[in-house]
């Protein structure tokens, strides 16, 4: 049949696009409006049968084997990819080098794909909007990353990241439920959740978060933070109604309204470095040259699954305005307004959609790494964090440099210089 494919649809076959997120993988064909499937980024270990997240595997060889299984499912169960398709991988800028190299190895060596291109998720978000510049915040599972993009070039120097996203919310919710959650069994007997053994796993936590919790308004949140900071006379706002959540056939968990409202506050609480999800946006703007700041502030794009939480976007917007008047930013930023874009897709699929739009273009062939190039370059991939010159592959010292460059340390490096130099300029 492949012959008819090419005849009927004119030459170039549509590439496949994978956005392998830390929690969910979005997969589908380029030039379509939405991914075919959204599946958990987990894979079953052949020996033990336990499900593991593909980003949690630290052993290179094991990762290689399990990625073969994972990509097999994507290829032959979820997307049903015919032979010889180019591949577009949408990735976070902080994807571990080991992971992307192993993935490329699986695709090139095991699946023998003609070409692969890795594209940064933040840049792809702009493709769904038709604008060249914007401030993109990706709030997903493990990390929240803010990356400004100006005229199609990501400003890596201003990149901001925090290890607070969905997973932190789950952990907080778990701790709170263990402390305050009450389970009623079929006899109507009530006991604390902590006495029931391991009944709440992360899937249930996620379900509770998605169905019951919401991001509260700023004024209420300020009261909550005041109470938790132990300020006198501070009072909690009247909590929303409790929810009866059925755990299994016998047990029902009562989720206090307080937990429903407070759960997401973990993202907005300032940590010891005075950072929260919303300060990331302003810090990223501060790191940028003064003449592009206004453009960025008026082109904010929120992507990632956590941004779909009820009330999240509104909270970010109100926090930004309130932060602007805080002493920390008052004299450093002269911004008047913030504006948000509304991408033509659900927020968890925005990066995928961008990749799908990028994937149809003629330049894909020149931008991607072909199988020949891959083998010629000793299975190395071009990467922003390495000095290895991809086209001049004889440079051995560069190869060594590349091997030492570990991307995982970079977020903290980019975070630490809080750049007083820039601040003075303002």
């Amino acid at each position, binding site marked *: 049949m492949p012959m008819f494919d090419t005849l009927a649809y004119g030459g170039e076959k549509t590439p496949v696009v994978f956005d392998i997120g830390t929690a969910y993988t979005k997969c589908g064909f380029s030039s379509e409006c939405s991914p075919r499937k959204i599946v958990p980024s987990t894979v079953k270990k052949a020996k033990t049968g336990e499900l593991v997240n593909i980003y949690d595997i630290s052993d290179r060889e094991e990762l290689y084997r399990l990625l073969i299984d994972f990509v097999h499912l994507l290829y032959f169960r979820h997307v049903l990819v015919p032979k010889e398709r180019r591949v577009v991988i949408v990735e976070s800028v902080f994807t571990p080098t080991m992971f992307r190299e192993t993935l490329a190895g699986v695709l090139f060596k095991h699946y*023998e794909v003609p070409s692969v291109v890795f594209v940064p998720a933040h840049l792809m978000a702009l493709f769904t909007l038709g604008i060249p510049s914007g401030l993109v915040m990706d709030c997903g599972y493990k990390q929240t990353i803010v990356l400004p993009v100006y005229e199609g070039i990501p400003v890596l120097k201003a990149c901001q990241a925090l290890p607070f996203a969905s997973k932190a919310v789950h952990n907080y919710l778990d701790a709170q439920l263990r402390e305050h959650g009450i389970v009623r069994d079929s006899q109507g007997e009530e006991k604390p959740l902590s006495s029931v053994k391991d009944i709440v796993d992360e899937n249930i936590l996620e379900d509770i978060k998605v*169905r*019951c919790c919401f991001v509260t308004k700023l004024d209420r949140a300020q009261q909550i933070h005041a109470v938790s900071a132990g300020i006198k006379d501070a009072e909690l706002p009247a909590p929303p109604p409790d929810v009866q959540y059925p755990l299994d056939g016998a047990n029902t968990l009562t989720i206090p309204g307080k937990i429903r409202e407070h759960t997401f506050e973990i993202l907005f609480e300032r940590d010891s470095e005075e950072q929260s999800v919303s300060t990331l946006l302003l810090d990223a703007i501060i790191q940028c040259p003064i003449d592009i700041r206004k453009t960025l502030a008026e082109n904010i794009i929120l992507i990632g699954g956590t941004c779909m939480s009820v009330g999240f976007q509104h909270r970010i917007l109100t926090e930004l305005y309130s932060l602007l008047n805080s002493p920390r930013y008052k004299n450093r930023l002269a911004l008047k307004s913030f504006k948000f874009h509304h991408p*033509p897709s659900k927020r968890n699929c925005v990066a995928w959609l961008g990749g799908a739009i990028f994937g*149809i273009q003629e330049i894909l062939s020149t931008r991607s790494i072909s199988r020949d190039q891959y083998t010629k370059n000793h299975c190395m991939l071009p990467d922003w964090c390495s000095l290895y010159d991809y086209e001049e592959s004889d440079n051995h010292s560069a190869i060594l440099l590349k091997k030492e460059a570990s991307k995982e340390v970079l977020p903290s490096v980019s975070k630490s210089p809080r750049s007083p130099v820039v601040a003075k300029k303002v």
Partner: protein
Amino acid sequence: MATYMDVNRVQYVAFSGTVAPLSKLYFCRHCLKLRSRDCVSQEVDSYYCSNCLENMPSPDAKLKKNRCANCFDCPSCGHSLSTRATSVAFQDPDNPGKSTPKKVYYLACGFCRWTSRDVGLKDQLIASGGWQEQENPNEKRISELLDYYKHLAQKDQTEREKKKYSRRRSYLHLSEKFGLTSHAIKKRSALMGIGGISIKDDDLSVDIEPSLAIDKVEELPDDVFTKPIVLTDVTTIRQRHANPDFQPTHISQLYPRHKTMLIKRSQRCKECEHNLSKPEFNPSSIKFRIQLVALHHVPEFRIMSLPNLQINKEVQLILTLFNPLDTLTHVALLPSPTDELKWDTAKVVLPTCELVLSPRDDTAEFDDTVDQQQNFKDDPSVVVSRKSNKIGFIVKVTPMIADDDVRISFIMKYDYKNMTPALQTEKKQPEITWLQFPVLVNLGKITG
């Protein structure tokens, strides 16, 4: 019969070095090598729907986004929906007093009792449906974007071509100005968008309205603080992800989804590109047109009886050997020369004589008059049992390491009559080749 229960007890080493039980290996009769999952390439052979078992040609499947035209999944639990018929009284417009019964159809889930009526979908007059498809409201905008970026990319491409021909003057070569890093970044494609070339060029015939940023976002509804949640009305994340276009948050927005097709796969040897396995086209058939699995071509070992394994004590182990081929097969067992896999934890004494296996005969099982045993002159100290194409033979094992599984390895050498189609047409005698495959056996823990 340890290997009936646990296939991983006896494993074979494929050509690529992969260790796997025989049931998971292929045998390429063109290169005469054992092939594992790592050295075969998978292909999509045909598309079919698992519910109606209807076959779909691949261009059709592509158009329908690999979804069956007739079958639906329940948006609530993912089970297949079935069509229900019921009769509804219709008012006759001509004479108002009279009503005529009419047959109508709706979709219902047999598992969770969800019906298409729950979400207000109108009943259909024909059984096959005519259910309206949900349309993504952003489809037009996205196709505009696609056109726009396509155009931009073409421009980018022509500009590159131009640059190739016009000689760059060295003093204008700015990339050196920023040192090595930016030089390298320039070449590194992945981080750069195609926005690098000026988007606002006048000669762009295709133009789109860039997305407009607004300073309003959806507010948190006030009743969230007071209204109790009806948990059964809020969709779970799995229900949302089942429909990536809409990701409904309330159960009233659930909509039946066309069932995703499944595929039949065929496997191909990566080296000689011959098919190793090809299923029959018909979705309801479970047979194969080509099936070169190793079980049909390579003699299979099983552990018959396991003696008490004791450290540094020689014990006799009985292995059975099956001949899957319909020719007389001679098997010799050789010690494995180098232990690259660091597998062995025991000393093994292999039978030195050749083991002869009678051909497989499916009818022999029912035929108990013929006693084939007479035909072979077996050494009774090696071969302890023989029945049709199966023998049991003795291997002596001395476990050497105390706190590990007892593992032995050897090389099996057997004569294989090569019946490749090319040779058959030439009407030659089938060529006999001796094949060697390393075999790894795990006997389990030391017992006492």
